[in-house]
C-alpha cells in the first residue's frame, strides 16, 4: 500500500455531500433549509464566483463532454455547486479546491444518470449507421461519438478520487492545489493521477478492441 492508498480512505469533506447517490437530480439540495433565508449568502460569494466560475464550468465540462448539451449541463452543475457554496462555511482560502471537487462529484453523478440514456441513444445511432450503409461522414460521427462516450464511461468507472484528481489536474490546478482539495500529499497526487491516466488508457483500449 502506498501513500495514495493510505490517504485516499477519508472523505474530502463537504463536496462528497453533493455526490451522494440518488440525489443527483433532486433540486432540494440547493434550497435553503425550511425557514432559512433564501438570501442568507456568504459575503465573499460574488468575488469567488467571478474568480472561479469559468474554472468550475471547465471542470464540469471535462467530465460531461464537449457537446453543446454537455456544456449547458456543465453550466448547470456550476450553478448548483456555487449555490451550495453560497450557503456553506467553507473557508475562503479553500474555496477554489472545494468548488472544483464539488463540481467533479456533481458532474460524475450527472454522468451516471446520462449513461443510462446514452445506452438507448447508442442503439439508435448504431441502427442509423447500419441503415445508411456506413457512408463516410456518418461512420466518422459514429466513431467520434463512440470515443466521447468511451471517455465518459471510463471516467465514471474510475474510483472517485482518481477521477477527481485527474479532472482537477487537467483543469489546471497545481499539484499543491489538488493535494489540498483532496487531502492528499503532493506526491500522492502524482501517483493518483498516474493511475487514473493508466486506467483511462486501458479502458479506452479495451473499448476499441471490443468494437
Amino acid at each position, binding site marked *: 500500500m*502506498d501513500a*495514495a492508498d493510505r490517504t485516499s480512505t477519508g472523505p474530502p469533506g463537504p463536496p462528497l455531500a*453533493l455526490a451522494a*447517490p*440518488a*440525489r*443527483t*437530480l*433532486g*433540486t*432540494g*439540495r*440547493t*434550497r435553503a*433549509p*425550511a425557514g*432559512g433565508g*433564501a*438570501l442568507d449568502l456568504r459575503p465573499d460569494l460574488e468575488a469567488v*464566483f*467571478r474568480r472561479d*466560475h*469559468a474554472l468550475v*464550468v*471547465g471542470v464540469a*465540462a471535462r467530465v460531461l463532454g*464537449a457537446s453543446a*448539451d454537455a456544456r449547458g449541463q456543465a*453550466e*448547470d*452543475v*456550476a*450553478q*448548483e455547486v*456555487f*449555490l451550495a457554496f*453560497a*450557503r456553506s462555511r467553507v473557508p475562503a482560502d479553500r474555496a477554489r479546491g472545494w468548488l472544483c471537487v464539488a463540481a467533479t462529484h*456533481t458532474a460524475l453523478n*450527472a454522468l451516471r*444518470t446520462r449513461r*443510462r*440514456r446514452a445506452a438507448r441513444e447508442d442503439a439508435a445511432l448504431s441502427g442509423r449507421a447500419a441503415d445508411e450503409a456506413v457512408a463516410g461522414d456518418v461512420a466518422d460521427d459514429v466513431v467520434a461519438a463512440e470515443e466521447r462516450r468511451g471517455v465518459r464511461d471510463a471516467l465514471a468507472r474510475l474510483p472517485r478520487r482518481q477521477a477527481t484528481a*485527474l*479532472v482537477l*489536474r487537467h483543469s489546471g490546478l497545481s*499539484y*499543491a492545489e489538488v493535494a489540498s482539495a483532496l487531502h492528499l500529499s*503532493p*506526491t500522492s*497526487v*502524482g*501517483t493518483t*493521477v*498516474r493511475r*487514473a*491516466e493508466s486506467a*483511462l*488508457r486501458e479502458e*479506452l483500449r479495451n473499448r476499441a478492441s471490443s468494437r
Partner: protein
Amino acid sequence: MRHPAEGVLRRVVDEPAGVSDPDHQHVAACARCQRVLGEVRADAGAAAGVLAVAAPAGHGVAGARTDAAWHRLRSAAADGAADGAPRPGAATGSSRAQRSRGWLRRPGVVALGVAVVVAGASTAAASDWLRIFQAESVQPVSFTSTDLVDLPDPSAFGEAVSGEEVRVRTVDSAEAAEAATGIAVPRVAELPRGVTGEPTYQVGEQGSSSFTFSAARAAASAEAAGEDLPPVPAGLDGTTVRLTAGPGVLATWSSSTGLPALAVARGVAPTADSSGAPFGEVRDYLLSLPGLPADVAAQLATFTGDGSTGSTLPLPVPADRATTGTADVDGVPATTVTARDGSTSAVVWTQDGELTAVAGTLSTDELLAVARGLR
C-alpha cells in the same frame, strides 16, 4: 539509487519544479526511468486530449457569460431556487419537483415530512383511512444543513401529491381571522419592549398532501444509485399516507426596519391518515431507505407515538444554524429554537390539537414571556 515512483515521473511531465534534484538527476541518467517516463508522458498526453474542453462559442465575451451566470445564480438564490434551480439532466425532462406546489416545492422537506409522519405513527392494523398520527407534543430533531441537502427526492420512492393549494390571505382583524378559521386567535397580553402597533392578521386554510409508496420506483432508483433496496414489506406497495394541517392564523408585528419583530401563529396541528400497511413496519422500512441521513433516521426511529392518543411531532432544526432547548408554557412542555447568530428565536408547543408558535427578533426569554401571556 532506487527508481523514483511513477507518481514522481508523472510530476516530471507537467510540474517538474516540484520534483527534487536527485530524482531529476536519476531520471536523466536512467534508461529504465526514461522508458517509463515516455509511457507516463504518452498517457498524460492522451488523457489531456480526451479531456480537452473546447472554448464555448462566444468565448471572447467571457465576461458577459460570467455576468449572465452570476445574475442567474442571484436569481436562483433570491427565490429559494424555486425556478432558477440548476437541474443537471433537465434535458431528460426530469422535473417532477416542478409539478408540485407550495411547500411541496421542497422535495427534501417532503421526504422529511413523510419520514416524520411515519416515524410518529403508531402501530395499527391496516384498514381504510386510518388516523395514525396526531401531534400532541413537539420535540426537535437535529440535522445539519448538509443532511437536508442529502435528503432524497421523495419522487425516488413514490409519488407525492399536493391537495388543493392552500390560500393565505390577509384579513382585517382578529375577529375576522377567527371567523375564517374557527380558531381563537391568541392575544398578546403585553408586547415586549420595542414592539408596538397593531398586528396584521393572515389566515390559511386547511392543507393536505399525500405520498404513495411505489416499490417499483424505489427499486429503480436504488438500482440507478447502485444500492440495494431493502426487501419491501408486504402491503407497503401502494400505501398512501395523507398529511393534513391547518387551518391557521398568523399575527405579525413589524419593526421599524419593516422586518417582522414578533409573530404569533396558531393552527390545527398536523395529523396523518393512512391506507394499508402496519405502520411500525412502514416506519422502519422508510427509515432504512438509502439516502436518509443516518443520524436523522436514528432520531426519528425513537418516535413511536402512543396509539390513538397522539404522537410527538418532530420539529426539524438545522443544528448548524440553531440551538434548541426546552421550556414550560403554563404547564405545557415547549421547545425553544434560537438561531446561532442570535438574530431570531422561536417557542413552539402543541396543546389540545393546536400548534402554537411565537417567533421574532427577540430573545428567548422575551418570547417566553409573550407565550405565557397569551390569552
